[in-house]
């Protein structure tokens, strides 16, 4: 099993194969985060990296952590990112023109330098013979039990603090994004009463009625042959993509001519 595999030896052939497949994937995905023009693509690459990292965690004996990584990061955090992306503008694809002078060059150079330093530091360090977490797991009677014991005994204070942070963050997010209602919410009964009392209690005509097309963006034609604006969704009217029939176009043209004449 996966746990047994990870817990026993420093490296098995299977792990090596998996690593040499996954590590380049992670790096490529990470680079693609930077290179993707659309933020949604970046988010997907990010999700890929995270899933790969989850597998790497599991390979190193952190099965709980790996699964939590998927649930928390891929499932919740990245989903939140996607949400916000869609809230703040779906089609915004970034321009890659750098506005700050020398920022990109300096950033990449510094980053490379930092990477070289980190790798140098790691390569100079001497590490103990990797023993794996098997012994620690066995001592507690299982992997989940070992993590639980560590969290709820040695790190219980940290745990409490972190939970406070989390709750505070949740409340803070609500406070930040909360918008006070200026007018009381109108309940459905009231709306329906208004609707019945209005001049037009029945539904608006569906788009395409009596028109030449039955697409959503084609307004219905009223009995007198004029187009009914109300039949087209508001959103389309806002976007200005309502498609009038040729007849209606001609009529509009006539009206404008008449006004000018």
């Amino acid at each position: 099993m996966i746990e047994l595999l990870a817990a026993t030896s420093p490296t098995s052939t299977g792990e090596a194969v998996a690593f040499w497949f996954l590590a380049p994937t992670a790096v490529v995905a990470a680079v693609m985060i930077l290179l993707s023009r659309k933020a949604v693509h970046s988010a997907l690459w990010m999700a890929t990296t995270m899933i790969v990292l989850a597998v790497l965690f599991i390979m190193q004996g952190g099965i709980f952590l790996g699964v939590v990584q998927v649930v928390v990061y891929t499932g919740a955090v990245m989903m939140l990112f996607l949400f916000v992306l869609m809230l703040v503008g779906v089609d915004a694809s970034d321009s890659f023109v750098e506005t700050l002078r020398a920022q990109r060059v300096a950033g990449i150079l510094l980053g490379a330098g930092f990477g070289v330093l980190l790798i140098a530091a790691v390569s100079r360090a001497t590490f103990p013979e990797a023993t794996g977490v098997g012994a620690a797991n066995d001592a507690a009677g299982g992997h989940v039990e070992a993590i639980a014991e560590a969290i709820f005994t040695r790190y219980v204070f940290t745990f409490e603090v972190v939970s406070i942070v989390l709750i505070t963050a949740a409340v803070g997010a609500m406070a930040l994004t909360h918008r006070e209602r200026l007018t009381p919410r109108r309940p459905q009964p009231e709306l329906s009463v208004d609707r019945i009392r209005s001049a037009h209690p029945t539904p608006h005509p569906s788009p395409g009625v009596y028109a030449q097309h039955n697409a959503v963006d084609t307004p219905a034609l009223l009995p007198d042959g004029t187009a009914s604006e109300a039949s087209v969704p508001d959103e389309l009217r806002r976007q200005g993509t309502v498609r009038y029939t040729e007849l209606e176009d001609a009529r509009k043209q006539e009206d404008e001519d008449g006004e000018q004449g």
Partner: protein
Amino acid sequence: MRLELSVTDALAETPWWLSAIKALVIFGFLVVSTLVMIWAERRVVARMQQRVGPNRVGPFGLLQGLADGIKLALKEDIIPTAADKAIFILAPIISATTCFLAFAVIPFGPVVSVFGQETALQLTDFSVSVLYVLAVTSIGVYGLVLAGWSSGSTYPLLGGLRSSAQVISYEIAMGLSFVAVFLYSGSMSTSEIVSSQDRLWFAIILLPSFLIYVVSMVGETNRAPFDLPEAEGELVGGFHTEYSSLKFALFFLAEYINMFTVAALATTLFLGGWQAPWPLGGPIWGGANDGWWPVLWFVAKLWIFMFMFIWLRGTLPRMRYDQFMKFGWKVLIPLSLLWIAVVATVRAVSNEASIDRQDILIYGGVTLAILLVISIVWDYIAGRESEQVDDVAMPFDPFSGGHPVPPLPGQQAVTVAVSASSSDGDKEVLDA
């Protein structure tokens, strides 16, 4: 005859080819079940609506699903121009692949002998299996969101957002309902959860958890009455509005397999998994839990839930979105938390202080009863006040809408202003 090997050992010693066969069997089982489910749904709903349902293709119309599937696959595959092509294709693939993954940890039965090899009737199992199911489900949400976004159209986007918000929200309630199960079984491994229910199903001792799970599993799978993401009156088809042909079929398949997944999870976590139902298991038939029989129990329990899905769809109208979210966040989650606190307390007390569970139940019951009585008295008092208010606030005016209408039960006709010349006798008639 029960075999001696434990599930973990049996799985550890399973050769790779056997695992491959198991995976294939699960895949086949799910696809076939989906076909059967589509047929069953159409037939059952038809019955509920006083119709006959499909009955032309094959005996009892059994092959209708297959025929529809082939037709669907052969339709023209349209990719909108505004779509983000790569993701548009990727989304249904994500949906359809992840939905199968969850079944890897569902135990269909105990350890059996296959081709001379002892193995458990589940593909794999590890210490955090149930979390794994949650993880896979949360990846499945990507399919919906990305499908909605990549279509480049308004309705799918809204549908995708809605469905992901819904799935995430109900996943919280779902995850919380698992906690009580973990507390009682002491494990997150599916096989151990099943084996810890050999005496009593968790659906009985953890009834609130079970009920919360059942509600949230319907929300999680976007099924009626919670099928808001594809509410056709508001959003046309939801996230898959722009999808057609095989890609639509993949979403379709994913939705049904997700139903099977949550049903299988409910069976495993709350209905004792593959273990025979109570009178069968122990006293009546000793061999009910041995060999291949448990697969039958498991499938039977699975289909109870599937029937429930159909039943719900045939019975309930769709909820309003805000009410639905309010229900999830303000009712299910707080209830879950409360229930977890109760379960944890009871567990801790009975573990630490060696207090009998019976005592806890008795004292808890008495407390609940007292609270109930207090609340009834309270309602009675409060209700009396509000009734008095109502009497004053809502006089019945028969002419309010322009037409004279008779009073409804509980309303009383009052004298209306009649012309000055009318006699007292008239008024009496009106009063009566």
